[in-house]
């Protein structure tokens, strides 16, 4: 897997890890998270 493909997986894993919830809590699946830049950065 080249770096660009790895980045695609990283983005997908980040979204998956962030969105997945179990019983109202984030489920554990990996270490990368997707941050919402508009909320995290700009506001």
């Amino acid at each position, binding site marked *: 897997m080249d770096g660009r493909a790895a980045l695609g*997986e990283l*983005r997908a894993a980040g979204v998956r890890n962030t969105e997945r919830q179990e019983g109202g*809590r984030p489920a*554990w699946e990996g*270490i*990368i998270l997707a*941050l919402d830049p508009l909320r995290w950065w700009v506001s």
Partner: protein
Amino acid sequence: MPFVGTGAYPVRVGNAVRPLLDGAAAFRAICEAIDGAQARVWVTVTFLWAGFRMPEGRGSVFTVLERASQRGVEVRLLCWRPDEATAELRANAFWGSAGHFDQLRREAPGISVRWDRAQPGFCQHQKVWLVDAGLDTACAFVGSMNLNPHSMVAPGHAGAGQNHDVALAIRGPVVTDIQHNFVQRWNEASERHEADGRFGPGAEGELAFPGVIAAACGTTVAQVQRTIHAGRYTASVPAPGHGAFEVARGEYSIRDQYLEAIGAAREYVYLEQQAVSVRPILEALVAAVERGVVVVLVVPSVADRIHGAAEGRGAWLREARRVLALSPGFFLGGLAGCGVDGARHPVHVHAKLMIVDDGWATVGSCNLHRYSLEEQRLNVALADPAVVRAPVRAAAGISGGTR
């Protein structure tokens, strides 16, 4: 990918470089190198906490260094001394208090220490370990780790309160330039003539600049790059095989390299940073996403950690971040670790890393906030696909580098 010609050191071929992901792997490799040292161990330190311990029961950093000294190895430590403007950071630094001298007399009487200030309000922020400089077996470690318990962690970050760091283990010709940098700093360390500005048997002597380039031992092309504030050092002795460099005028090759590399990116830019608020670099990232380059920025997942004094200000910053935020090619990521309670805990991304287009990277101690490009930093830029892929793959959970 272009390197830069604006610094003290040339591009050197024939290096062997190994990425070390997170502090436990890095400090283990550093300790193994120190334990095997034949002649000398030279270290530059920014932050050192009293409670820091080296891995696998080796004890404090002073225990490790004194053990080498007792074997006849010459051990030198260059430590940052904060000024009044940075006095609040003394709690995290080994700045030469009376207590620190007592600790040295007690734990490491055989090592030599000099203290070095930065420009007022700034920090001596090079984090380098150099073992057996001048010998064929010389190696160096360049990275971001501080000597505190938050750094002594492994990839996966199982636990709470963890930092994420990246370092490089390096052998070959660029080690000579890392040696040159240490000699320059040691010889002109600001506190060297002060009674409380040095410690130990070799603290009064000056060091000779290297005259021979370390032998090639690998295939990685690399360059040592720095930020050196104008007027901080004056000796313009050239690195071996390279022209003289007027260091008194300052060096900003890290900044130049970041801009060159982002400007040359064709496919992607991957960054791990505490913050990105340097205007020209943000503008370069905006230009990159606008021409179709994927930009992935991994930062501390708790934003408050970087919304402090180091952050930039102004409408331009908000606008640049808004453009990035709305770009489909931009991804802002954070890291989290799983605690013993099964809950997710934020990881503080403390690495200073950029990878471009699958073949080029820079790793070191240079943040990208408003202090970073004015104070003393050291990075190594390198071209080697095998080396640069490891951090991305580790963050994605695909496979790691050295663990």
